[in-house]
């Protein structure tokens, strides 16, 4: 019958056109558990020529596009470092902005190769979601912001303080625990609305404003010329270790992601930066020669080019340089995010 014919013909065309588009969509790399030598993710990244890296794209200091649409921040630099090591070019990154909800699904389904999106490393996530966490790139935690004029320099001096805090957050619980543990007293001012809470702090209603340290830093930063009137105390009283995440089952890829971080830490420890790395190529130190690929096959053992570490340092820089470009811009002190021999937690195993 005619109308049916007409309708079915159109339906067929529509169906076909949709079908073709789905065929054109990218296929995730097969999850190969049996591979000891080769990494399927590495192979996929190499053949694609681009690293698919999951970020938030909406948090200042971690990953946020600048006015030219270039992703900036600690997480963005983490993606670039991996790309520099794997592909020899830090710009070969496709940033995939993800929400807190779809970030793990994106990783599990193969849409991204690595997730660098201020994700807290917890036991549950590692044990039941099939994920592996790399080297912590940011030790966040509950912090304290005070007025410089108060003369307070340590959280230990906060006995008797009035503290502005958002109700119902982990911050609230962390403060209660901290003050009880240190046998100190405080008066909380709990306001739901963040803007209002901040206004209360600025107006002097509270002595202290407390929330995640990175948020405190950003808040201090937007005070512009008055930023210097506020001090972020060095103590962080709760643990929020943020780390890059990969899928379980591709150990080679996990090694690469982990050792790229260690390279940047080691470089800072040895004083090697993007500016002076070329002068180290002629160094006599066997450690440095191995690291920069002048001798030995460290890169090859990871399945990478021997120049991998050189590329990371030259194109992205060491941990200190990355910090200065990102969190440093927000006025954040390094605290726990400093080298182990500077009172921080950054510690890299030997490159041998």
């Amino acid at each position: 019958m005619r109308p049916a014919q007409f309708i079915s013909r159109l339906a067929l065309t529509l169906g076909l056109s949709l079908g073709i588009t789905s065929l054109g969509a990218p296929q995730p790399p097969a999850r190969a558990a049996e591979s000891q030598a080769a990494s399927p993710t590495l192979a996929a990244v190499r053949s694609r020529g681009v690293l698919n890296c999951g970020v938030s794209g909406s948090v200042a200091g971690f990953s946020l596009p600048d006015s030219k649409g270039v992703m900036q921040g600690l997480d963005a630099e983490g993606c670039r470092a991996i790309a520099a090591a794997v592909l020899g070019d830090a710009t070969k990154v496709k940033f995939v902005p993800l929400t807190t909800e779809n970030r793990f699904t994106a990783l599990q389904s193969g849409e991204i190769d690595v997730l660098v999106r201020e994700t807290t490393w917890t036991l549950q996530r590692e044990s039941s979601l099939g994920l592996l966490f790399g080297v912590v790139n940011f030790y966040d935690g509950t912090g304290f912001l005070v007025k410089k004029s108060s003369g307070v320099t340590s959280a230990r001096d906060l006995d008797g303080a009035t503290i502005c805090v958002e109700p119902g957050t982990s911050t609230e619980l962390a403060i209660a625990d901290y003050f009880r543990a240190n046998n100190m007293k405080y008066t909380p001012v709990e306001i739901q609305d963040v803007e209002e809470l901040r206004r209360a702090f600025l107006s002097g209603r509270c002595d202290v404003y407390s929330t995640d340290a990175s948020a405190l830093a950003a808040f201090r930063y937007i005070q512009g010329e008055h930023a210097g009137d506020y001090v972020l105390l060095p103590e962080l009283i709760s643990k929020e270790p943020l780390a890059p995440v990969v899928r379980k089952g591709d150990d080679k890829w996990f090694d690469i992601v982990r050792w790229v971080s260690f390279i940047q830490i080691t470089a800072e420890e040895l004083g090697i930066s993007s500016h002076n790395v070329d002068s180290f190529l002629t160094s006599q130190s066997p450690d440095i020669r191995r690291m920069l690929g002048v001798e030995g096959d460290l890169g090859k053992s990871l399945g990478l080019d021997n120049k991998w570490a050189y590329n990371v340092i030259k194109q992205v820089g060491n941990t200190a340089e990355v910090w200065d470009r990102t969190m440093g811009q927000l006025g954040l002190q390094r605290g726990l995010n400093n080298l182990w021999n500077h009172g921080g937690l950054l510690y890299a195993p030997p490159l041998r």
Partner: protein
Amino acid sequence: MGRRQLIAWGWQILVCAGAAALAFLFIHDAEENLATRHIATGFHFLTQTAPIPIGETPIAYTPSVSTYGRAFLIGVLNTLKVAIPGCVVATLWGTLVGLARLSRITLLARLAAAYVQGLRNIPLLLQLFFWYGLAQVLPPPRQAFRLLPGVFLSNRGLVVPVLEGAGTLLVALLVLAAARLAAARLVPVNQRGARGAALRWGPGLVLALLALFALHPSFHLEAPQLRGFNFQGGMVLSPEYVALFTGLVLYTASYVAEIVRGGLLAIPRGQWEAGRALGFSEGEVLRLVILPQTLRIVIPPMISQYLNLVKNSSLAVAIGYQDLASITETILNQTGQAIEAIALMMAVYLGISLSVSFALNLFDARLKRERG
């Protein structure tokens, strides 16, 4: 003839079989995907406790104690809480704007036209962001704007007095409205006099009822008072609610205004002239001659605008008012049960839409019967 019909049926069955096959394929894939991702299925999660905090709860709710089912119900109630008053206010405001567009005062008409054009041509989402942004730069409670006695606007939202015993009054008014409707149905339509009388008594009765309640001791106004950092007493409408409500009302009113204008313009000019010739004032012609006729024309498109308002209220998700869509999203993130959560949400919206459409069809049929 027989052969043609056979072919037609053949095609139909083929298309339907195709649709069914596609659905079967989807279900099969979904089962497989859910299994590999360890996502539970079924509606069991509705009875589990929900750890999600909810800001505005019309019924009692405690995070980690109450269930997902209750959280979902709060979503439905919050949607209704913004949609029902929204429809009422949008109708009133839209009608005013529509009348203003037809005003002989040129400036007023122009202004109304500018309002309609301005709001219709900017996405509602953007308008909501604008209102929400504005709500955040309002002064703190201590410097709150006093709009009316007892009504304060600050960055904590809108605080309004609460009528103690308002529930009883509402029930009484509803009973009155039902009686009025029943009377209108029972009295034969051609007895205009009786109908007119009911129309005239209506407001008087309502006033009498209000007076009765005002004198009753259990009925009093609880006005908010500034104590410490915030207002105590009264009812607090969050900034999110106020922004969503304002945005929805102003936006929908721009459509209502056009419907009202269209409805009025559809009445031939002769009706106005006839009314005036009878010595009625402008207002009387409008009330007694034009509006009753207009009503019949505008009711179907108005209903469709009400449904739009209900559907548009789902944009609450973007400014953090916890309506049905917003709570559904939270639930699906917590449980991972996207299919069930979304299906449940769609079922509620669909239920509202279909029942209103059904009522509209009944109304239409009745109008046709009355005319015929």
